[in-house]
């Protein structure tokens, strides 16, 4: 009944005094948040680099360089970009096919396009990796946080049942600590969702760029046959 006894409601003490289930939920959310931020930064670096390399290669390609010289350079590169790899695969297939006698133009072009498509698929898979993780963190962690909150509030009300005179002071700490789980879930989800949308847009733009490059390269190669 003494009013001077106040509950310590600092974040740390709330987390420390939470029930085990809520603490597990919080730990999982913290892990999810840590990993999602890790992938956010990693993805940022990767996509930025892919864009820069594509810019560079397109500049070289459209500056009128010899195709075989470009091919040799791409072959020798230690860290070739996506566009370089696509070009390399297509050009290698093209030269192999044109050397074989009795191949008509359509067959050569089909083979070249298939080779480029395969490399493109692999590259896209690399660029899109871990985006699904961000998507699931973004969509699931609010629910996980909510689960922790519901559990914590259930506990708080169960404790209330044993007290004769129920006051808000009996439930407030329990509810506060339970709500922290929701807050953590949202804190993990919001950046993940934003990053996912951002990166998905980036990957989409890159894939369109690669697609159009493939079409243009096939045109150029087809012209070379004649």
């Amino acid at each position, binding site marked *: 009944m003494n009013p001077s006894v106040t509950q310590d409601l600092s974040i740390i003490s709330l987390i420390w005094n939470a029930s085990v289930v809520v603490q597990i939920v919080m730990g999982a959310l913290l892990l999810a948040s840590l990993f999602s931020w890790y*992938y956010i930064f990693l993805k940022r670096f990767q996509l930025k680099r892919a864009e820069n390399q594509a810019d560079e290669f397109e500049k070289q390609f459209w500056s009128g360089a010899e195709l075989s010289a470009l091919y040799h350079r791409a072959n020798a590169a230690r860290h070739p970009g996506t566009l370089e790899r696509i070009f390399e695969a297509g050009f290698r297939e093209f030269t192999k096919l044109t050397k074989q006698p009795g191949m008509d133009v359509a067959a050569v072009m089909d083979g070249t396009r298939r080779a480029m498509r395969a490399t493109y698929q692999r590259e896209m898979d690399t660029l899109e990796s871990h985006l699904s993780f961000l998507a699931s963190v973004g969509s699931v962690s609010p629910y996980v946080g909510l689960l922790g909150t519901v559990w914590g509030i259930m506990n708080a009300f169960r404790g209330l049942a044993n007290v004769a005179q129920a006051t808000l002071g009996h439930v407030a700490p329990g509810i506060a600590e339970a709500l922290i789980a929701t807050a953590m879930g949202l804190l993990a989800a919001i950046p993940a969702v934003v990053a996912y949308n951002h990166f998905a847009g980036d990957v989409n733009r890159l894939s369109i760029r690669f697609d159009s490059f493939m079409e243009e390269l096939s045109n150029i190669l087809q012209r070379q046959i004649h």
Partner: protein
Amino acid sequence: MTYDEDVSPRERKISRGLALGMHVAILVLLIFGVSWQRRHTEPAAVVDLWSSMAPPKQETPAPKPVPAPKIEPKPEVKPPPPPKPEVKAIPKADIALKEKLEKERKVKEQHELEKKKQQEIDRRKDEDAKKLKAQQQQQQVELKKKDEEKKKLEKERVAQDAEAKKLAAEKQALADKLAKQAASAQAGEIDKYRRLIQDRVRRNIVEPPNLQGNPEVEFEVRLLPGGDVLETSLKLRRSSGNPAYDQAVERAILKSSPLPLPSDPAMFNTFRDLNLKIKPRAE
């Protein structure tokens, strides 16, 4: 080409560090944000409103030692030495030579000379007298001056003595006043807390509906040093004649525990055993 080959270890390390930093930043933000909220809401729970706010306890300043007035050493006034009258050598007239050379004129001139001599002597006498007189006058003036100076010094000394006496008296008065103030402050403090206790109890009284007038009820209470009421010590000294009201006051006293006490632990003794006279309405 797999994902693992595509990402350099350096990028991984940087990403890991950035992610950790991000979380530390969020945590710090949360901790500080929540602690701010706490600081704002906490006082609301413990506020106590008093009808008469106690002024902050005045600490009676220790009486400053008044420096004893320094009696300056009196400059010894030496009367300037009276100027010595200069004795002038009187040139002697060379009379003898004249007598030898002009014996015949001696008799003749004798008279003249004597006359002259007489004149001279007279004149000198006159002069001497004058000088003496002047000297005497000067001495007199000097004496007077000395006398005056003495008087002045005497006056000064008297004045200084009077001042010292006055200062001592003031000091005494100040000390008396301070002592009186301290005593009255203590008395005032006791009175004030008595009133505060009464106010607090009165606020907690749930008056019975059949209460008439402003009856006084007296309770004997023993307090613990924190101001907590010893429940077993609560005794009804003098009933108000209305048992319902007596009980209401008893409940109010228990509800008011801990009672407000002066912060000075030395004053607790006056509050250990309290006779609480409670009226439902303040006069």
